[in-house]
């Protein structure tokens, strides 16, 4: 089959590789009909996530048709159409029982690597480094899905792939970000980053009762999308725009009730701190560039909540913990507990409450994926979301 492989920092290539096989009783093999490039794939592309290996197949947002099932998979049949969550969960450990699916104890074959870095290991993820399990990803024609009895969501309506594909990661991730923001009715919510997760965080914040959502970014195509679903936008790259001042101005001086950092570890900043982070990460003295996190903590109102769907990987410098303590801030974060959100969000799509495909800007075959990784990384061609048909020529 054809698959997109990580071949080193800044280098991805399409290779012909072996087809995946059933390896465990709860596995299924899925023929991938649509897959997408995630913003967090760019962290891998840019070499920010350790324990990648040449030849690793990327991709954790995908859906398709069940091709084969392991002998313990009784809920799926060949021919079923499914969306697969990017976190792999066993469904029976203490964490799965608590519905903390992304903290599953039994799905990371390399748990010891993550234990060494984080104290404990989270669940395995598709195509996201050996520390996170080393599983082959879904930017390929076929993919092996472990614990297929637990994860995949059957799509029984005739909704097109594009409307349900984002249930594999970014729609639930944006939704959990809004839920983690502990939004009360009539709240004002600020969202940093209007990429796909930010878009769904904005949409979800409105669904959960927010009265005003303020969206912060510097790319017009993203700000346009944010305004199209009702947000007030702040372009921090405009001359004289200061985000903290803007947020005070837009909240009568008290600050947003909740701040959502949908940017994560590769934040761009026009301020001095941005230069500081770039220098320190280049010198390997810092692993992440947390300028958005710093700003979100600074901006949130007293007693407010900072919700962090953006990915962080390592040790962060100069995080204003004193400000967080001084204001009594709540912080919530983490990989998405996918399995909790997929069904209810599918129901919203089926009812026509939201059509997640509005963020798609590029539709390509697998062969153009290496080129589009670069284009998206370099923020050219107004990319908002890239969807791949791995069977298109």
């Amino acid at each position, binding site marked *: 089959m054809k698959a997109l492989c990580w071949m080193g920092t800044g280098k991805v290539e399409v290779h012909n590789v072996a087809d995946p096989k059933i390896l465990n009783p709860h596995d299924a093999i899925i023929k991938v009909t649509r897959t997408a490039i995630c913003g967090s794939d760019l962290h891998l592309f840019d070499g920010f996530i350790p324990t990648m290996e040449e030849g690793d197949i990327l991709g954790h947002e995908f859906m398709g048709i069940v091709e084969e099932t392991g002998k313990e998979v009784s809920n799926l049949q060949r021919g079923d159409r499914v969306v697969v969550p990017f976190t792999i969960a066993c469904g029976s450990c203490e964490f799965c029982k608590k519905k903390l699916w992304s903290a599953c104890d039994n799905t990371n074959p*390399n748990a010891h690597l993550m234990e060494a870095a984080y104290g404990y290991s989270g669940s395995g993820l598709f195509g996201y480094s050996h520390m996170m399990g080393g599983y082959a990803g879904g930017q390929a024609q076929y993919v092996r899905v472990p614990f297929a009895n637990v994860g995949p969501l059957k799509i029984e309506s005739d909704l097109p792939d594009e409307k349900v594909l984002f249930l594999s990661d970014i729609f639930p991730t944006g939704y959990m970000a809004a839920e983690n923001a502990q939004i009360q009715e009539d709240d004002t919510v600020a969202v940093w980053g209007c990429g796909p997760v930010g878009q769904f965080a904005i949409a979800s914040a409105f669904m959960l009762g927010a009265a005003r959502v303020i969206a912060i970014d510097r790319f017009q195509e993203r700000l346009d999308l944010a305004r199209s679903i009702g947000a007030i936008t702040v372009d921090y790259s405009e001359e004289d725009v200061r985000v903290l001042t803007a947020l005070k101005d837009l909240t009568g001086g008290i600050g947003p009730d909740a701040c959502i950092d949908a940017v994560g570890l590769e934040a761009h900043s026009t301020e001095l701190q941005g230069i500081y982070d770039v220098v320190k990460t280049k010198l390997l003295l810092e692993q992440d560039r947390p300028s958005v996190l710093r700003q979100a903590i600074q901006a949130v109102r007293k007693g407010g909540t900072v919700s962090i769907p953006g990915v962080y990987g390592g040790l962060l410098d100069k995080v204003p913990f004193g400000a967080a303590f001084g204001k009594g801030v709540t912080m919530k974060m983490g990989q998405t507990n996918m399995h909790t959100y997929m069904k209810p969000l599918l129901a919203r799509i089926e009812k026509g409450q939201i059509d997640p495909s509005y963020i798609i800007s590029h539709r390509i075959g697998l062969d153009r994926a290496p080129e589009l990784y670069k284009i998206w990384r370099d923020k050219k061609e107004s990319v908002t979301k890239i969807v791949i048909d791995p069977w298109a020529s």
Partner: protein
Amino acid sequence: MSDALQEKPNAESRPISSSAAIIIEGRYMAPPQDGDGKVWVRTTALVGAEPDPLYKLWRDVENAPLWQEQITAVTRTGDTTSHWTMRSGDKTIEWDSEILADEPGHRITWRSIGGDSENAGEVIFDPAPGNRGTIVIVLQEFRMSKLTSMWETILGRNPKQSVIENLRHFKALAETGEIPRIEGQPHGPRGMVAGMKRSIYGETVATPPGETQAASMGGGRR
């Protein structure tokens, strides 16, 4: 005990002691340290099952190759004795083992009685506080120098890590009926340092099968 604190609705009745010596008279005890030609490892796992089936799974020594790394065969040689074969890289070692204490549903201790490995161990199945399953505690010692242990680490798997991984496999098998694995999945061309990286990631050690051939033949749909 002082009656200063009356209100603790979910408190466990505090264990006074447990034999792998994690708790003695209410105090936490640190694990034994390496020395005198021995290396020690103590590891624990919360497993979502009653102690009894877990004890049985562990006590069934002939099925150990299903969940213990690099163990290729175990043969019972008596009520309490067995013969173990282990393959590490291209080296095969064998030894005999004897069960000393055997408390069904609670505790097993063993030691080697001749052969290529000198080891002893204990496993305890303690009910977890708050009815959340069983805390499995493993204490294992190997008679080997630190140098040998380092050498083993370079060749494949640190013996201590192996004990930790085996308990992880045991838990996964008990809770889900399989052991997570990535061996045998597709990948693109590997680079120059792939072998070294795989060794660092621990991926050169084969993941145990997790199920018997007989079990995998029953109830198949394929």
